[in-house]
């Protein structure tokens, strides 16, 4: 009956309709947190630890409290003394205090917070808070943090966060800095290696990086006279933040209301509580609205992508068939677990690569506390790190065995019908097609022609990611003027969900897309959604919207059937008209609603929900990347001449937006590959701004950047769609790493790939270019 079900020609889905937020955004009128104020609002600011690990001997805020304009100063001690609040939170483990209590665990750990009438007074107050630390030995690198005798960050027992069923198996290892150890085994690893013709072992490493959404975290919180707490916040997860705040304030979740405006980018950085606990605590003590917007430096100190060391060992037969793989990932999760355990799980699930391997031993997925800012969700959830490892190892094997890198992948990669690690049947992968298309686009097999003095090479990489667990619910209401409003808690953070979800609803309802609009999340009124992340909005929320629209449509048709005196089965809705098929008997949707209510008002509702079954990987999305690079052997500079990102999107609901996701992901991947790296000295971040943390700019783009979208329909997704938000990122670094080897014969194991590292590696291999014309080595 529905457009989707009947396989009717699609009118809206599959079209690059203009973005629904476009007019506001090009006019500078879109409302983000920076445009949201309340009368009497105070400004919040945070004082942060200056030592990487220490006991708090004294936090004296007396002078600060006396600064004119200062309304509230809150410290960890005031939270504890108050007694009404539970100061610890965390999605996986309750290990993070709103403000440091007894100990600080990293440079940047929040120690005290101030609310004042203006920023200047707040800053003056911060300068007057006296803090005495007793410094403790600190540890920064994951491997050091698990060495015997390493200083312990969390000494007591840690309570589970209790929020997510997939995290009930998170267990810190007592007496260590290991906050979770994830194990997965298949077959018999050692036997596999004994059997192999060739065994290769390599270690790869990836530094901490930043998501760097242009908009920082920002919250406006207030407590109304009844005691209810309300917030505007730029979070990707209003319901999860609400649940965490409810635990902090010891109130039922419905005592808290969170509203989310447009987000100026997120990429995982705005998942889970960030500025919300401190802002809300300030408002709660001040009894006035408080706006807390993190400074850029604070954003750097709030959330990072996990620094990871990956040790990988593979065994293969002479013909390239993989027989065994052993992977150890050491993720440094920083001072607090945050969502690290789930990142390690995802990395574990996907970490052996998208290959058929009889013996796999992923026995040590450790996630390790270090005295650094917390690491959490980042576009790709562990895949960017581990793809750098497994795809370079695949190329190493190919080179050692003298097999073409495409061939060796084709020989081993998962295809439909294979079994995934937990026993699920893989389907609708499109992985092979991604690889072949990307290879063709880079003219794989044709040698690169380098200019004199330069060297060129090509490389590629693939990846497969699973959907993240969670539930999504949508309501669709059709009003008496024939327009529809879709109520969801999906956050529009740039990905285009407002547009795509409206397209899905419009297609299913038979309404022109301009007649469908999206509500923004408001936990009081929009239904539950787990999160806007993990590439799940189009598929999970899209499916919920589709089902909700279907229900509303069915109701409309029932009503119209009465009004038109026809059978429901003979009706169709298109372009806002309900029509008896093959006749000119038709009613506008508006008329149908009005006639039913016999008034100028009325609403028809539909409801839909989607949730993943537990622990099961429901669907997979595949991607490939291919690069051609040019290396200057004198300077070590690597220029990307061409990059191709190929992603299987199931069904491109809005092809232009899908393309942009792939382009944006590829460029973000280029940043991770070449320049992005947080640099520390004894736990002190040295580059907390764009002056020394470099994002890719126009001039850093490859000369050519190409996108290939593949559509292998996923039966459960709306109109066959899968996710595309993350898939372009992970292959980039490995594709370039592999191209580098093709160009100059040296492999780098450590990201980012800097000119200096390339030159050094070349030099060690004896292949660096001359300095003077005569060659000064």
């Amino acid at each position, binding site marked *: 009956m529905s457009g989707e079900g009947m396989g009717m020609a699609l009118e809206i889905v599959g079209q690059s309709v203009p973005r629904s937020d476009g007019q506001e955004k090009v006019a500078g009128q879109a409302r983000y947190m920076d445009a949201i104020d309340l009368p009497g609002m105070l400004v919040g600011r945070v004082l942060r630890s200056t030592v990487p690990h220490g006991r708090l001997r004294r936090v004296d805020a007396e002078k600060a409290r006396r600064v004119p304009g200062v309304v509230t100063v809150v410290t960890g001690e005031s939270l504890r003394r108050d007694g009404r609040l539970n100061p610890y939170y965390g999605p996986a483990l309750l290990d993070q205090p709103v403000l440091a209590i007894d100990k600080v665990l990293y440079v940047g750990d929040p120690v005290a917070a101030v609310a004042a009438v203006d920023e200047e007074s707040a800053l*003056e107050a911060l300068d007057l808070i006296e803090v005495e630390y007793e410094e403790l030995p600190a540890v920064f690198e994951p491997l050091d943090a698990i060495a015997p005798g390493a200083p312990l960050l969390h000494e007591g027992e840690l309570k589970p966060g209790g929020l997510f069923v997939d995290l009930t198996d998170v267990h810190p290892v007592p007496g260590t800095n290991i906050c979770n150890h994830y194990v997965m085994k298949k077959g018999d690893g050692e036997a596999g290696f004994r059997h192999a013709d060739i065994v290769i072992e390599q270690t790869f490493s990836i530094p901490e990086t930043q998501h760097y959404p242009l908009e920082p975290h920002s919250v406006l919180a207030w407590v109304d006279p009844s005691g209810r707490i309300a917030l505007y916040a730029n979070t990707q997860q209003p319901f999860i933040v609400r649940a965490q705040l409810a635990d902090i304030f010891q109130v039922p979740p419905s005592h808290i209301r969170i509203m989310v405006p447009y987000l100026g980018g997120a990429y995982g950085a705005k998942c889970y509580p960030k500025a919300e606990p401190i802002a809300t605590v300030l408002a709660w003590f001040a009894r006035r609205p408080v706006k807390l917007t993190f400074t850029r430096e604070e954003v750097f100190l709030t959330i990072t992508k996990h620094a990871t060391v990956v040790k990988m060992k593979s065994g293969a037969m002479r013909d390239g068939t993989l027989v065994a793989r052993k992977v150890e990932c050491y993720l440094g999760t920083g001072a607090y677990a945050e969502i690290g355990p789930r990142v390690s799980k995802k990395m574990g699930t996907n970490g052996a690569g998208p290959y058929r391997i009889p013996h796999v031993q992923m026995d040590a997925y450790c996630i390790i506390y270090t005295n650094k800012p917390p690491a959490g969700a980042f576009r790709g959830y562990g895949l960017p790190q581990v793809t750098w490892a497994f795809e370079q190892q695949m190329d190493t094997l190919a080179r050692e065995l003298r097999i073409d890198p495409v061939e060796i992948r084709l020989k081993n990669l998962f295809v439909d019908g294979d079994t995934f690690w937990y026993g699920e049947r893989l389907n609708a992968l499109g992985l092979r097609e991604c690889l072949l298309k990307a290879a063709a686009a880079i003219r794989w097999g044709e040698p690169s022609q380098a200019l004199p003095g330069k060297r060129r090479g090509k490389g590629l990489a693939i990846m497969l990611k699973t959907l993240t667990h969670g539930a999504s619910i949508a309501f669709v209401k059709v009003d008496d003027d024939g327009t529809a409003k879709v109520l969801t808690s999906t956050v529009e953070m740039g990905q285009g969900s407002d547009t795509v979800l409206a397209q899905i609803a419009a297609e299913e309802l038979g309404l022109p897309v301009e007649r469908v609009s999206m509500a923004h999340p408001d936990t009081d009124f929009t239904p539950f959604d787990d999160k806007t992340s993990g590439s799940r909005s189009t598929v999970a929320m899209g499916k919920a919207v589709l089902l909700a629209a279907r229900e509303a449509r069915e109701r409309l048709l029932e009503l119209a059937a009465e009004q038109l005196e026809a059978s429901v089965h003979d009706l169709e809705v298109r372009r806002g008209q309900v029509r008896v098929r093959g006749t000119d008997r038709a009613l506008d949707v508006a008329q149908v609603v009005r006639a039913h209510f016999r008034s100028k008002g009325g609403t028809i509702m539909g409801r839909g929900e989607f949730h993943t079954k537990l622990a099961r990987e429901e669907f997979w999305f595949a991607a490939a990347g291919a690069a051609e690079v040019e290396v200057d052997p004198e300077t070590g500079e690597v220029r990307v001449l061409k990059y191709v990102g190929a992603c299987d999107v199931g069904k491109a609901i809005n092809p232009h937006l899908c393309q942009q996701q792939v382009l944006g992901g590829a460029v973000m991947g280029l940043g991770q590959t070449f320049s992005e790296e947080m640099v520390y000295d004894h736990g002190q971040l040295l580059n907390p701004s764009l002056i020394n943390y*470099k*994002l890719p700019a126009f001039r*850093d783009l490859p000369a050519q950047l190409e996108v290939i979208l593949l559509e292998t329909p996923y039966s459960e997704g709306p109109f066959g769609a899968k996710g595309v938000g993350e898939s372009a990122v992970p292959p980039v670094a490995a594709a370039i790493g592999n191209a580098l080897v093709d160009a100059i014969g040296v492999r780098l194991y450590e990201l980012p790939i800097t000119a*200096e590292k390339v030159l050094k590696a070349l030099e060690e291999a004896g292949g660096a270019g001359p*300095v*003077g*014309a*005569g060659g000064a080595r």
Partner: protein
Amino acid sequence: MRRFELLMPTSLDEASRLLREREGDVKLIAGGASLLILMKSGVYQPSCLVSLQRIPGLADVHFDPGEGLRIGALTTHRVIERSPVVRERLPVLSEMARMVANVRIRNTGTIGGNLCQADSHADPPPLLLALGARVRAKGGKGTRTIPLEEFLLDYYQTALQPDEVVTEVAVPPLPAGSTAAYLRHTVRSAEDFPCIGAAAVVEWQDGICRQVRLVLGGVAAVPQRARQAEALARGRSLTEPLIGQMAEAAAEEVEPISDFYGSAWYKKRMAGVFARRVLLVAWAQRTGR
């Protein structure tokens, strides 16, 4: 940002007097592009800023046959980039100005501010040094002219007295038949300060190289003149092998310091590479190759 007082004098004397009165707790502000960043991050917290923006006559660019190009301290990079006088007299200066920062910063950042900031990775210093530029400053004790080589002392340190204001930069005319080039090497992003900036000014006479000034920026606290490399070329005709030797000598004589842009090892290598490349450009200009 933290509170401060802002004073807007309308003459150099007044500015200098204000600096004297508030000594230690005051900063001059020109465009503010460098200063405001340091104040936002709390590196500087002066209670008072003295703005140069209302002082007339500090943003002129003109050519004086004796002194060469006289560029007012408040002249922005963008004006230098686009100025017809600069393009005519010293096109290399305009080309270099175009490489500084991004178009927005070039529109507010001034040449005076750039030199007074004395950032070791800035673009103008190595080229201006190779061109023999002099800095003019006015203070309580009158006006003095300081060769750029003596003006730049160390990281973020200049030879200015606390009450002195830089009024202009004078760049002497190039001797007839000279060529000049500037190259920058960025490593993290094209939108970055250079890891290395290399400037060469070559004075030719009948195809022979009379004099070379070769300066490398970014390697150490202040731009380094590669004097041994320069000496190799004096009175000889340039050839590729000679340029190679000069590059080696330059790499040999600089003593780089490791920082965000590269290790000492890498910078030493790049000093050689870019010394050679910039000399090749200056040479090619002469021969029209």
